């Protein structure tokens, strides 16, 4: 809501993380949100609260304390089986009115990106999407939210001084979760809701788990990724073979996806997934900024390209100058030797 004066501003306290729940399961990105919230709360001298909405989540709530939450508010109701934007938004609005958080973080996922803007409008507050960095202004305590804009060509820092709470979404794999600490103490608070006629607004008819078509690059330790230089679907077969050999997942640049060589679920970058792999092997990817923003926080970056001067080759820890169609089969052969 719009702040009226300083006292009003001070009446908002604590940093909240809205748990990402899919099919009744709290998703790992929630731990990352709590990790980010922890740092902000420490800077503000306040607490971390997690809000969990979903059927069957009550039993999973306790675990969030081990990841850094001080309090966990759980709304575990049958009406929350599927994802009803309108109902969940209403619940979070109610929680905001009741508990007055200063900051609310959500995941920049399909669910978070649907829910958070609805909450922001209803609660009259600002929302910054896809933040890559969050900090506290030491002068006035405002949340400083940094996000890539214009395809990653600039970083914009955004604040919302006159409204509370301050809302932000963060992509999976951008913030770091704290190590799980089972000795941490906290409190779980159970909230009940009147679902009313929410079911009339929207009915969730079916839920499909389609893990096949969902490529979970976020959890891959090693990623072999291909771009326009891979030249076609056969080129991606070569990459798949390479990836299988070293236990890697396959990623791609948008150019490869737009050419129809591999499906969108493999896309890495600004309009695809963000990854933080141990090893990222870019094959025939020039490394335009929109791609880099999705992978540059990987630990070790290896690039294979004919052209030594591309941004990716400059960025890489190891840059192999050569034709990927010649180099990759040689690498596979070399690995097979031992």
């Amino acid at each position, binding site marked *: 809501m719009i702040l009226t004066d300083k006292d009003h501003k001070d009446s908002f306290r604590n940093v909240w993380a809205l748990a990402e729940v*899919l*099919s009744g399961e709290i998703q790992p990105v929630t731990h990352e949100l709590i990790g980010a919230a922890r740092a902000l709360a420490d800077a503000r001298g306040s607490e971390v609260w997690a809000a969990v909405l979903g059927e069957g989540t009550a039993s999973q709530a306790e675990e969030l304390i081990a990841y850094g939450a001080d309090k966990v508010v759980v709304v575990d109701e049958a009406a929350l089986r*599927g*994802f009803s*934007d309108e109902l969940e938004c209403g619940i979070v609005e109610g929680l905001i009115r009741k508990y007055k958080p200063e900051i609310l973080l959500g995941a920049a*996922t*399909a669910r978070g*990106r*649907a829910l*958070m*803007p*609805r909450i*922001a*409008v*209803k609660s*009259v*507050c*600002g*929302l*910054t*999407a*896809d933040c890559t960095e969050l900090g506290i202004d030491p002068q006035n305590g405002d949340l400083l939210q940094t996000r*890539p*804009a*214009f*395809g*990653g*060509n600039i*970083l*914009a*820092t*955004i*604040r*919302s*001084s*006159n409204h509370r709470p301050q809302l932000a979404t963060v992509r999976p794999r951008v913030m770091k979760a704290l190590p799980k600490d089972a000795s941490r103490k906290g409190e779980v608070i159970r909230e009940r809701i009147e679902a009313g006629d929410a079911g009339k*607004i929207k009915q969730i*008819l*079916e*839920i*499909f*788990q*389609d*893990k096949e078509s969902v490529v979970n690059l976020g959890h891959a330790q*090693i990623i072999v990724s291909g771009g326009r230089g891979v030249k076609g679907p056969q080129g991606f077969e070569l990459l798949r073979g390479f990836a299988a050999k070293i236990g890697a997942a396959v990623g791609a640049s948008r150019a490869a996806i737009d050419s129809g060589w591999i499906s969108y679920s493999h896309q890495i970058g*600004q*309009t695809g997934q963000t990854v933080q792999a141990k*090893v990222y092997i870019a094959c025939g990817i020039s490394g335009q900024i*929109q791609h*880099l923003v999705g992978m540059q926080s990987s630990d*070790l970056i*290896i690039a294979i390209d004919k052209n030594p001067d591309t941004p990716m080759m400059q960025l890489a*820890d*190891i*840059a*192999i*100058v*050569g034709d990927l169609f010649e*180099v990759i089969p040689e690498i596979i052969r*070399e690995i097979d030797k031992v």
Partner: protein
Amino acid sequence: MKIVVCIKQVPASNDARIDPETKRIVREGMKAILNPFDTYAIEEGVQLRGQFGGEVIALSMGPEKAAHSLREAISLGADRAILLSDRAFGGSDTWATSYALAKAIEKIGDVDLVICGKQAVDGDTAQVGPGIAAHLDWPQATYVLKVEEASREGIRVRRMNENGYDVCQMGYPAVLTVLKDINRPPVLTLKGALAALKVDIPVWKPQDIDADPAKIGLDPSPTRVVKTSPPPPRNTVTKVIQGAPADCARELVKDLRTRGIL
């Protein structure tokens, strides 16, 4: 069925120029295109009109030249278009933009369905669609990859998520944001483009949509860009490997074994 499709004109390239004062993107003097994701929204509207009759109205908020993108929407099948343009709208963030668009949708009246693209490629926020739904207090379905069935009573859609997808049913009025997978927009024809040139596009000001001046434009927007900077460079010393492919491969594999990766 009365369908409003919200479209945005976006810069054609990502060479961003930022106004040092407002910290907002300078849209003047930039080559602009119709937001690519919005062509799918237009096509979905056109297909639903094919099924039920009615009209597809393209709506955009932006500078006067955004009318070009509205004409493109007409050549892609929209029946008519409305532009919200006024200095007072300038600098609106997603909250204020979705407010203005919602007010315009109310003004249009009797709208059954609003369709937006998944996101605009300049800001990449994906916030305006759900924002409109919230201002209107209508139900929403985002990341829609398929309309399973539409009838006069309601619409059943498939929504994508990270685990797969779900199917939900809503009555009208409602808001959808659609993914690229939903349809294949037609290729623009010269004939369509020429016909669209003749269409008159009304320009609406804040007073035309009864917009509260305290809710539009830069000042009332809850978010404010306070700083822009280039992305930080990654500090690495690159080890370059070149020569015969077999030699490169040997050196790489040796390196990866030393690091314990292989």
